[in-house]
């Protein structure tokens, strides 16, 4: 049973990540390759606040979001002036820089040794330390996030983003400040990604930089490409599929040494097939052109 709830916890965490990236890719048309860096920043900021500065879980949770949002301006201010390939390249650069800092600033993050013994989240006297209670906890947070995303998507802000995505010049002609909208979308997205990071750290109770690499960013991106973008169901469907796929391979009794590579090959194939024949993904709304 724990195994099932473990998968569900991972689905909840990744669903928040996928939804956060969806705000950039699906709503704003910004192909970002640095989502894992905000995920990692959330995990590290909350962990360091809890373990080194003695903060409680709730303040650490919110400070991690704020920290991630502030750091997102570092990349969004400069890179949003860039277009197309150059924007992707800039976010990819930011991802690699963040990883290098997490990995090499051993004095603060312990680098490759990682941080063990992270306490489970505590609320007053109640500690969320079983897999089942963590499932309920993450389900609650993920549901809140999904509601917020639903609200954002239908708000004037979300609809303006979609307008910018469809036709930047027309949106500008209607008096929308394109750069400011994109920077805000980036910040909101970074904040939600940080929530996933906090949840991940509290669940695994150990973090190291290898969870937050460029490959992880590509994985998050492939979740929403395969699932679809521009609405809520696409990223969620993508998350469920991509988290469960390795487990299906496990049930097919494929040896572990091959399974990891085989999984990646399937991801790669899915990306190519979806891009060619189904650019809106399995259940998305926004169609890449």
């Amino acid at each position, binding site marked *: 049973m724990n195994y099932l709830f473990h998968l569900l916890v991972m689905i909840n965490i990744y669903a928040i990540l996928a939804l956060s990236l969806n705000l950039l890719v699906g709503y704003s048309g910004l*192909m970002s390759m640095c989502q894992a860096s905000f995920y990692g920043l959330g995990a590290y900021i909350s962990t360091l606040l809890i373990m080194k500065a003695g903060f409680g879980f709730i303040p650490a949770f919110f400070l991690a979001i704020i920290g991630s949002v502030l750091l997102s301006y570092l990349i969004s201010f*400069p*890179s949003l*002036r*860039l*277009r*197309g*390939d*150059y924007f*992707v*390249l*800039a976010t*990819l*650069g*930011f991802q*690699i*820089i963040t990883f*290098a*800092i997490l990995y*090499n600033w051993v004095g603060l993050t312990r680098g490759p040794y990682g941080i063990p013994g992270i306490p489970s989240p505590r609320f007053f006297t109640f500690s969320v330390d079983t897999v089942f209670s963590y499932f309920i906890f993450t389900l609650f947070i993920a549901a809140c996030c999904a509601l917020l995303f639903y609200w954002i998507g239908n708000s004037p802000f979300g609809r303006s983003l979609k307008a910018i995505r469809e036709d930047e010049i027309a949106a500008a002609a209607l008096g929308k400040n394109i750069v400011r909208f994109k920077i805000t979308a980036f910040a909101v997205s970074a904040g939600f990604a940080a929530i996933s990071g906090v949840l991940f750290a509290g669940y695994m109770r150990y973090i190291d930089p290898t969870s937050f690499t*460029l490959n992880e960013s*590509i994985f998050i*991106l*492939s979740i929403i*490409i395969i699932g679809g973008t521009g609405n809520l169901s696409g990223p969620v469907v993508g998350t469920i599929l991509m988290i469960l796929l390795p487990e299906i391979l496990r049930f097919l009794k494929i040896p572990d040494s*091959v399974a990891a*590579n*085989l999984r*990646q*090959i399937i*991801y*790669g*194939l*899915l*990306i*190519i097939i979806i*891009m*060619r024949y189904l*650019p809106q993904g399995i259940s998305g709304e926004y169609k*890449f*052109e």
Partner: protein
Amino acid sequence: MLAQLLANGLVTGCSYSLLALGFALIYFTTRTFHFAHGAVYTLSVYLLYTFFNLWKFPLWVAILIVLVISAIFGVLMDETLYVPLVKKGSSQLIQMLSSLGFYIIIINFIAMLYGNETKVLLTGVQPTYHFGSIIYTRTQLLILITTAVLVPSFLLFLKKSKVGMMIRAMRDNPILLQSLGVSPRQVRWFAFAFGSVLAAVASSLNGLDVGIDPNIGMPALLNGVVGVIIGGVGFFEGPVLGGLLLGLLQSLIIWKTSARWQEMVTFIILILFLLFRPQGLLGYKRRTEETGL
């Protein structure tokens, strides 16, 4: 110490500039951000390992076979992966993501066949050559000489030959080229074939120098791309210069700080260039509509 670091930086820079030139050849003409170039890089050096170390071909025969295969592979990849997308009128973004998917497939296929551990192509102690206080191994010298011969002659080929002219024409204005009756598909073949061969040369030499593992492709490709951006878009001399400069710059970073921060400084340089000089060192300012890049 500094002299030796710079000497090593020059060797690294040479392999970057080969890679950058190959990438630019494809990127400038087809406007495709060819992530799978990293897969060609990895695949070709694993082919070299297969022919040279496993099947015991003589080294030069093995390299020759690898170059031919990688050229064919490059063209086939274009035909199966990009041409259908271009025909459908898909955006650069879709092509980029498909390319990324293709990269993931090839890399994991290689890892599945050969395993994840590092493989050494040349065993035993390599002979070294002393030039004053600088020491080069034989493989390093081979990299320097190959680049010094191959790159200038290839640039000359691009300048003088008919094929080179078509490639440069497609870089500058693909629509005008079509209206002159040249099939862009043919030019694509040349771009992908030559580009892939350059990647294969870089990876073969580098593999002989430091050994291989399945994940060498992406970092190598990214360094090449940074070289392209530093050097500048619009001229094929740009990527060559950018690659060399990046190699030297990275050795200076090691000298000033430590190897740990090399990657980070490289990408900070990339972002600074994208911001303040997106046209690169040699390029001149153009409108996005004009270049399509």
